[in-house]
């Protein structure tokens, strides 16, 4: 098919605004998938995605559609991840498109990610097709929301389509608009091959499958290919298109979207954003924007049972096959023994990995409180980076500690202005300015340390705004701050997994809160257990867990010993879920106590 009849587009939306449902309807309408085979939200293949209602990984599908002009068009829908942690992946997926359908919920209106994704799409120079979805909802206010969108992107509100993806209303019009308004690809068919990798997955038979958009030139399945960024050369196992399952093809031409099964062993070898070309002496210029994935959030993951270390390692290895942004290295904690320090793109990414380890690999794990990467300038002039509070060198040797700062956009109904302001300020946020992109909505712009964002910030925001606020954040820079290590001693021994790096102004308050929380969480032992918090070499808080006094069962009436035994067995199970730190049993929740401090 000539480029003239190809349209490459994506759907961008805030979480739950109906992106996947709209994609499903398009697949049905174009006959790409039969109604019978329709499993709700085909594009979200992971259970977790379906459950969380968001797309974790991008995906692509080719549809053939006969337009009202009677001609058949090839429509490539590229699905984008719906979460801010995956901003880079979103930007690459957008680069593979010429147009974007911007979906906004008719009852919710604009949200932070609507804006964030819209800005990304405008940056990628995409044609925007604004759509108001869920007009069937009783609370829908389609005209009002259409006005908001129109004002935002500077178009006439009449061009904003009003649809209900759930009921199928207006979906055909969306496809018509894609064909009419999205420009066809404008690549040079005769130039050397340049194909953008916008996603990948690992297939145990075909190796890494790179999802590509052919920008210039074309390729045949017999060609020898090369990655410009990673310098890895390979011969494809297979090439083809998504229909929506992988369907082999002999060639992919300029403007097309498809896949290249590379036979490579890890997705890190065929990274998102890399450019694939023919192996040749003179390589073309890489497509712009490639970045190495950079984890922002770090946490220790430990098996509850030491003997599961091997299984945890295997599981992380397998997850990494499919997820180039997950990094991990072995770590030893005196409290939790052997585990891994893992790096994630953000909190959401971390949650997903944690859940996949628990569900798909059936592992019992302890995840320590997340941390960011600190830069530490030593007195001897050297700079080191640390990802774990426990690794902070002695305070006397430190010149300064720098921590990552982010720009933060919070998008909220104006009535929550006060509570949002209070939350951000409490978390050391610096107010920059505010914008009013639509009536009754304010976008508050801040700079804030990432360490404050990753601990419960989003939950705090949601609870203060009845769930209406949304947020987006991006890395800004490292800044020197007055930071100190908050250490916790249980039974006079420092527990590394409970250490945290905090601002000195907050150390006292946080130390007290942590100690009183741990006092409630740590069950009474055979002896008195002192819990202390220390910062900068001083004990700043102390509490005792009293020794257990009484733990015994009454008599067994009428010889019913099975019931007593069951109680004991339950007690035994409970013990198993504890970690022995020295001679003290500490329940798993205690390791996350640091997380919940901000509520106090």
């Amino acid at each position: 098919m000539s480029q003239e009849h190809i349209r490459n587009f994506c759907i961008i939306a805030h979480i739950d605004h109906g992106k996947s449902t709209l994609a499903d309807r398009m697949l049905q309408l174009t006959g790409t998938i039969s109604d019978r085979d329709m499993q709700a939200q085909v594009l979200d293949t992971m259970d977790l995605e379906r459950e969380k209602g968001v797309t974790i990984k991008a995906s692509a599908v080719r549809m053939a559609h006969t337009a009202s002009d009677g001609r058949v068009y090839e429509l490539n829908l590229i699905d984008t991840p719906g979460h801010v942690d995956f901003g880079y992946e979103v930007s690459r997926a957008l680069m593979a498109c010429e147009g974007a359908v911007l979906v906004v919920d008719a009852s919710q209106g604009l949200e932070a990610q609507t804006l964030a994704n819209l800005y990304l799409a405008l940056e990628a120079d995409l044609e925007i097709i604004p759509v108001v979805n869920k007009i069937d909802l009783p609370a829908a206010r389609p005209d009002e929301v259409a006005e908001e969108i129109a004002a935002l992107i500077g178009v006439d509100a009449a061009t904003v389509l009003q649809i209900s993806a759930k009921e199928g209303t207006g979906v055909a019009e969306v496809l018509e608009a894609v064909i009419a308004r999205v420009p066809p690809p404008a690549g040079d068919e005769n130039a050397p091959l340049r194909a953008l990798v916008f996603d990948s997955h690992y297939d145990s038979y075909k190796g890494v499958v790179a999802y590509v958009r052919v920008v210039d030139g074309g390729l045949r399945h017999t060609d020898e290919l090369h990655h410009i960024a990673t310098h890895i050369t390979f011969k494809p196992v297979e090439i083809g298109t998504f229909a929506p399952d992988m369907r082999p093809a002999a060639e992919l031409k300029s403007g097309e979207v498809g896949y290249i099964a590379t036979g490579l062993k890890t997705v890190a070898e065929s990274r998102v954003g890399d450019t694939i070309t023919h192996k040749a002496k003179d390589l073309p210029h890489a497509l712009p924007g490639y970045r190495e994935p950079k984890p922002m959030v770090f946490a220790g993951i430990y098996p509850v049972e030491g003997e599961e270390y091997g299984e945890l390692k295997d599981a992380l290895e397998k997850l990494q096959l499919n997820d180039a942004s997950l990094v991990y290295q072995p770590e030893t904690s005196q409290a939790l023994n052997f585990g891994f320090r893992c790096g994630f793109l953000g909190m959401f990414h971390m949650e997903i990995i944690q859940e996949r380890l628990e569900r798909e690999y059936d592992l019992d794990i302890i995840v320590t409180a997340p941390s960011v990467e600190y830069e530490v300038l030593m007195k001897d002039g050297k700079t080191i980076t640390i990802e774990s509070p426990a690794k902070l060198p002695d305070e006397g040797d430190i010149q300064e500690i720098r921590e990552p700062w982010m720009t933060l956009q919070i998008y909220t109904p104006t009535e929550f202005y006060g509570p949002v302001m209070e939350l951000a300020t409490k978390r050391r946020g610096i107010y920059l300015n505010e914008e009013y992109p639509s009536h009754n909505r304010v976008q508050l712009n801040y700079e804030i340390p990432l360490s404050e964002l990753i601990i419960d910030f989003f939950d705090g925001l949601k609870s203060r705004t009845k769930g209406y606020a949304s947020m987006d954040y991006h890395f800004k820079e490292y800044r020197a701050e007055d930071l100190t290590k908050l250490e916790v001693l249980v039974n006079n021994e420092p527990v590394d997994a409970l250490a945290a790096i905090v601002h000195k102004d907050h150390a006292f308050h946080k130390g007290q809160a942590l100690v009183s929380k741990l006092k409630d969480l740590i069950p009474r032992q055979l002896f008195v257990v002192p819990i202390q918090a220390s910062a900068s070499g001083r004990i700043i808080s102390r509490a005792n867990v009293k020794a257990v006094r009484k733990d015994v069962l009454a008599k067994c009436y009428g010889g019913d010993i099975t019931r007593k035994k069951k109680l004991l067995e339950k007690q035994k199970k409970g013990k198993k879920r504890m970690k022995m730190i020295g001679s003290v049993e500490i329940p798993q929740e205690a390791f996350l106590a640091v997380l919940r401090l901000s509520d106090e």
Partner: protein
Amino acid sequence: MTETSVYIHIPFCTHRCGYCDFNTYEGLAALIPAYVDAVVKEIRYVGERVLGPVVVQSIFLGGGTPSLLSAAQVEAILRAVGEAFLVLPGCEITLEANPGTVTSGYFRALRSLGVNRISMGVQSSRPQELTILEREHDFGAAIQAMKFCREAGFQNVSIDLIFGLPAQQLAHWQRVLEDGLALNPDHISLYALSIEHGTPMQRMFSRGLIEEIDQDAAADMYEWSMNRLAEAGFCHYEISNWAKRDEQNHLMASLHNLQYWRNQPYLGFGAGAHGYFANVRTVGVLAPGSYVARMRSLPVRERAIPRTPATAAAKAVDRQDEIGETMMMGLRLLEEGVSRPKFLARFDKDLDTAFPGVIRELEKQGLLEDDGERIRLSRRGRVLGNRVFVRFV
């Protein structure tokens, strides 16, 4: 020949107490005659089928309120036991009685039937506590019942008391125990109140009307009681049980309960009764009506003893379970403990091999005492028994 015990459950009460979650029913008194017939039938069922003689060393009529049975009904049951099994001379025969349900004549009749031990549900002496427990008697009735017992010639009378009641303070409990001692019992059982699921008390608790007392207060009461009872000449032979010595210096411990704690066999008869015989644990169908019906129309298919037509569930106990249960029960016996030679003889396995390192560790924690011959709970281990038991099950 291993001696066996017999437990007979009498699930009827004129009123169900507020804390009670046992298999008991109020308002079913009309069923008692049919129920007694059914119990007799169940006893005979086992007696006719069991291989070899069953030597009975103790019989316990528990409840519920067994003292709701007439003397004739008790007689019918005891006669059935005597006909079905070989009841040893001097066999301990206990009946649980509630103050307020008994008369002097009743006790005399029981005594003449061979009942030789009474376990009296006194529970408290404080009116407000008896009210909260929903007991139907006052302490005056307990005094009177005790008098009737002695007049009828009972020389082995036990009382039950409950401590750790909502709002109870140490001084309150001290008063209750002193009152209990004033009744001059031969044996005392002290139970810490536990608020059980599905009881009226638990509902009050979940509505926030009453509060559980904290473990420190309960521990204070228990520890005070240990001292006080020792002073009064009682031997603390099991976690919840104290006994005096008779004139021949024999400890008047409950032989029946010792059977449980030594993990020895017992046959259970009646609705919801538990049994442990030939390495099988059994439990009878709970509802008295169903129990009667099951025993009335015997099934065509024979059931292997100790199962009877009334058995609702049965489970064979494997060696590993038996070891764990022997430990968990045996360690409740504070004087006797678990003896190394007896353990070896029973399981053909050394105690220390069965639980490598565990005994040493518990000893180091101050929970166990080990004199080489036997292991026992230490004084501290008595209040923290669960911490010890879990290591063995």
